[in-house]
């Protein structure tokens, strides 16, 4: 894609309707776009779709209506249920209740192949291409044209070329290895795969996230060509500017529910969109803040000029003993990477991390733990837990060596310590010999946090501590975090839920695109201000308009 010189397509608001007759001469069956795309027939209708996972209601009554030839934008914060919704539509998950109507028929897709056959293609953020196969092989992966069991390579290459032409990228050679293509080119191949299935609906999950700014224009041009051919697109993005430019209608999700459906993408005021995204449907129960929170003790953690190229740059921050510092930011703002770098799980390229005045060895988790840091990482299951092992062994994972005598572990002592933690965190079920696998998300998180309550943790790094945690357990976790701070533990908290950061933290840092754009006491910020900062300048423009 980058090889191709493309004019600034980004500019004019080419209405999808304009492109009705524009379909390139291709033998694939084209659906004539109706005069007014938004008035096209309804291809997809979701009614009251519910999907629950252990401990969390990921979808809690979703309504969605998508018409042929439109770009329907899905808007929502992290954890609002967008990913689950995509997975329901693409046949990865089956809804617990509610109806999915596809082209007039109620359907349930038993697997992704069924959804694909029915004409729903999904382009995930992390493109699911086979890097060492050619463009054509990827486009027709799993349904290669065959004769007598042999792949008709020539035929496949020809059809791939046609599809690429239809996408306006005839310059990509079908026999080129996908590995050698730039990110934008790979995205085109993903779309070619969708078209090779005669997709009638293409779901794009943050397609612009992997693209450079000028490549986004190209993406939009392709989307317009697709919609002009009558294909419906569900477009997911955090960037409001893109939604304004490419979208026809917007549906907003919040906590697994549709809070607004079919808003006009261009004319709905930004304030409306933002309040629908953030309007509180979850009651956040924050514990009372101890009155007169004195500015606590000395600096515990001091980070200066920390940098990792492509992730974050020149970040400085400090956390005092007994202080809760919150970092607000979206996925991709560099917040999780920052936390992991402070912890030594990633090696800083520049800058220093000091604990109690002493510089920590970069890239060494051991050094950080010895200095009194503990971390509850973003992905509980893959980064923090031994799922098949008993609860107590997970609680003592960072401390079992302390209880050991001459290298011999003390199982009785470990269980006693874990029991103490289980009591204080109100762990359910209470039996610490059960495997961690059997716990709900909230209780698993308590195990991870509880791990650092043993030993002498001075600073706790929490990355999305309440993701996938139900409301009750949330309140309990907040209580635990607050009382830790009252005991003098410093807490550095990352969350994409702005109310959580504001309600829990004493001081807030807002991160965007790898930089701290604002630092202030939590009392001086409100949700909308933070969201404006988090969602880049586009929102400010929108708000001004």
């Amino acid at each position: 894609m980058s090889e191709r010189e493309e004019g600034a397509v980004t500019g004019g608001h080419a209405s999808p309707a304009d492109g009705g007759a524009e379909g390139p001469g291709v033998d694939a069956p084209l659906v004539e776009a109706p005069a007014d795309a938004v008035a096209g027939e309804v291809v997809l209708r979701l009614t009251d779709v519910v999907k629950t996972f252990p401990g969390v209601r990921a979808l809690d009554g979703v309504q969605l209506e998508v018409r042929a030839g439109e770009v329907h934008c899905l808007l929502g914060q992290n954890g609002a249920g967008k990913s689950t919704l995509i997975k329901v539509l693409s046949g990865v998950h089956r809804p617990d209740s509610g109806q999915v109507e596809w082209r007039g028929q109620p359907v349930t897709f038993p697997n992704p192949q069924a959804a694909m056959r029915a004409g729903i293609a999904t382009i995930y953020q992390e493109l699911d291409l086979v890097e060492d196969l050619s463009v054509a092989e990827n486009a027709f992966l799993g349904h290669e044209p065959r004769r007598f069991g042999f792949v008709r390579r020539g035929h496949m290459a020809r059809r791939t070329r046609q599809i690429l032409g239809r996408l306006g990228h005839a310059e990509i050679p079908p026999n080129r290895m996908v590995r050698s293509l730039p990110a934008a080119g790979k995205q085109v191949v993903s779309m070619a795969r969708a078209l090779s299935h005669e997709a009638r609906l293409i779901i794009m999950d943050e397609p612009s996230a992997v693209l450079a700014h000028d490549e986004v224009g190209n993406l939009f041009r392709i989307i317009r060509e697709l919609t002009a051919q009558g294909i419906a697109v569900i477009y997911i993005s955090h960037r409001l500017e893109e939604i304004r430019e490419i979208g026809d209608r917007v549906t907003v999700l919040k906590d697994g529910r549709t809070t607004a459906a079919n808003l006009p993408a261009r004319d709905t005021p930004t304030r409306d969109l933002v309040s629908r995204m953030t309007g509180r449907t979850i009651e956040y129960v924050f514990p009372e803040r101890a009155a007169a929170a004195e500015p606590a003790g000395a600096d515990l953690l001091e980070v200066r000029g920390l940098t990792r190229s492509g992730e974050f740059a020149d970040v400085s921050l400090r956390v005092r003993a007994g202080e809760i510092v919150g970092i607000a930011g979206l996925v991709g703002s560099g917040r999780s990477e920052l936390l992991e770098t402070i912890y030594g799980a990633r090696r800083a390229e520049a800058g220093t991390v000091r604990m109690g005045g002493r510089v920590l060895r970069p890239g060494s988790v051991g050094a950080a733990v010895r200095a009194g840091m503990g971390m509850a990482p973003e992905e509980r299951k893959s980064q923090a837990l031994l799922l098949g092992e008993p609860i107590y062994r997970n609680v003592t994972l960072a401390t079992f060596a302390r209880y050991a005598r001459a290298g011999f572990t003390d199982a009785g002592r470990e269980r006693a310590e874990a029991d103490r933690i289980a009591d204080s965190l109100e762990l359910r079920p209470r039996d610490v010999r059960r495997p961690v696998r059997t716990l709900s998300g909230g209780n698993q998180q308590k195990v991870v946090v509880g791990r650092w309550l043993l030993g002498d943790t001075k600073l706790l790094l929490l990355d999305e501590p309440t993701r996938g945690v139900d409301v009750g357990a949330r309140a309990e976790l907040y209580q635990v975090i607050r009382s830790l701070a009252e005991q003098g533990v410093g807490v550095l908290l990352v969350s994409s839920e702005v109310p959580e950061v504001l309600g829990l933290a004493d001081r807030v840092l807002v991160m965007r695109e790898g930089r701290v754009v604002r630092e202030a006491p939590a009392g001086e910020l409100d949700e909308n201000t933070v969201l404006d900062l988090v969602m880049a300048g586009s929102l400010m423009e929108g708000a001004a308009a």
Partner: protein
Amino acid sequence: MSEVTETPAAERAAKLPAQSPPVDPAETAAAGHAATGRLSWWRGDGGEGARRNLGLIGVLVALIVIGIVTRPDLYGDSSWVWSNFLTILKLASVVGVVTVGMTFVIIGGGIDLSVGAIVALAGVWATTVATQSYGAGGMIFCALTVGLGVGLVNGLLISYGRLVPFIATLAMLVAARGLAAEISNKQTQVSDNNTINSIASTNLLGIPLLVYILAAVVIAGWVLLNRTTFGRRTVAVGGNPEAARLAGINVKRHTLLLYALSGLCCGIAAIMLTAQATSAQAAMANLYELDAIAAAIIGGTLLSGGRGTIIGSLLGVIIFSTITNLFAINGLSTEAQNMVKGGIIVAAVLVQQVHFRSLTQFLSRNRLTTT
């Protein structure tokens, strides 16, 4: 947290554990969980592992029953039964020692294909004329050092050189046998040391010394896996390396130690095998890696790491040597024997998969009720 400022009003805070590391033993006992602590000595391998081991014992009993049915004449003689039992254990002893090391490596998420080659190299090195001139002590020291050293090289390549364990140890397999052939000049080196040779022929209290060595290694391995921080790290590193790393465990160093341990076990096995043959050569201990891996797998060690038991591995080795023995007393070919072994490996893994799947189904059903 050396000093904790108590907030007097905060009742809830008091419920949180004190942050001070030294916990008074009396306080621990007062917590009332001392009783559960005492159970831990025999619960070591875990309930699920114990159940799997019962299955293996069932297989063993079945094999013995087949033996009784096919050769009732032999099994009628009680002195033969005892000596045959010792024969089986002796047969299992060398591979058994190697399997203990292999079990650690596999639980830790790796694989060691070079064990047979390490045994051969250590055996050959220990029986060179120069080494033999230092006597039995020198020969044992040489074998153990060579085993440990080669294991360390494996570990360095894998943990710090970031080679895939399969590739690193495959390369070592080839290289170590090559070096063994070079040192021995492709000749069989006879051991003239009577102390070494007597290791294989000595009986204590009517039981061969080799069986005592196997028992010692198995017991040491069991204690190491179930009772020490080393064992806990092994399970953590194999079960979820990222979680282990983020909990402050030095995953690389531990991986290195696991391969060193495997190498050390090979050194011990080299002495045992050399004593049995009263010689060493580059082709000795051929395909031991496959026997050891197969024994660990049918013993219930998860090839992807994080789960496994020493007792299971021991039972795996004994099952294999019982099959060999069963074919020998019936005068059947080793070819048929290998086919049966292959079948047993497949059957054991299939049985475990079914067992595991039903277990996960059970857990996922129950998970909904525990939230």
